[in-house]
């Protein structure tokens, strides 16, 4: 792996970590305070006194690293050599959603039977996903636009 891929890997981990903290905050914000008290017996996410606990941050860290690895597997050619970008994207998001659901179940982040928690998680995760896709698409469009403008400039220069 070269320097560029390594820095991208760490960037992905940071984005995933930020997303998870945001989702946790949204879940907390949506959950009624009484419920949050009950949930704190279940997961350290809800024992917010001095911010997120080390245990929660470690759990988020593990999921973030796995997200980075997931991205590396599907969006580079280290393992999968030939696949369409759209297929890669769908596969990556499918694995990501399965992984997050497993993490919710394994780390007991909230009670899956509780509607508010599920809703909070869905809204938080969905919002972060939409924002990240929107930002990703926008960044790619800007890059493509810059490249094509530069191409036209060079083509014009060549004409003269």
């Amino acid at each position: 792996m070269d320097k560029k891929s390594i820095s991208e890997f760490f960037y992905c981990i940071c984005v995933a970590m930020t997303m998870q903290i945001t989702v946790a905050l949204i879940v907390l914000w949506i959950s009624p305070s009484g419920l949050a008290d009950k949930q704190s017996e279940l997961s350290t996410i809800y024992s917010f006194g001095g911010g997120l606990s080390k245990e929660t941050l470690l759990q988020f860290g593990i999921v973030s690293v796995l997200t980075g690895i997931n991205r590396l597997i599907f969006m580079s050619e280290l393992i999968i050599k030939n696949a369409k970008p759209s297929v890669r994207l769908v596969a990556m998001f499918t694995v990501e959603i399965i992984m997050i659901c497993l993490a919710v179940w394994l780390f007991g982040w909230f009670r899956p039977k509780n509607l508010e928690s599920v809703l909070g998680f869905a809204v938080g995760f969905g919002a972060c996903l939409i924002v990240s896709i929107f930002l990703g698409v926008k960044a790619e469009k800007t890059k493509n636009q810059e490249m094509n403008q530069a191409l036209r400039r060079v083509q014009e220069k060549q004409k003269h």
Partner: protein
Amino acid sequence: MKISFNIDPEHPETEISVTCPSVTPEVEKIMSMLRVLDRKLTVKKDGEVFLLNLEDILYLEAVERKCFVYTEKAVYESDSKMYELEQQLAASGFFRVSKSTLLSLKHIQSLRTDINHRIRITMDNGEKLIASRFYADELRERLGLK
């Protein structure tokens, strides 16, 4: 090989003449290089020899030690090697986008980022080519984006 150089202010234009006992591969190479200077490339198709204008060439591709030249209407074959063509055509706006492909910058219709830092190139005739990671960086540099 004897090379003579004659400066004559009364001569209306630059003239190059090659005198040889027979057409050897070396002579063919010299002719090919001179034609590139004249913005032409010697190619073959179905046994016939053609002189293509460099402006008409979209891209060149090496397949199994053969070099194919693509224009909007036809595909020709060149006897030159890819590295030779790369050197000869560099000044005419051709550059490498992968180990086996050389293309004309002026015939690129659009560029699009692809996974793994590659660039997807759409040519004027709608054909899609890929600039590999290494050459994509060189292309960005050429476009003044790096």
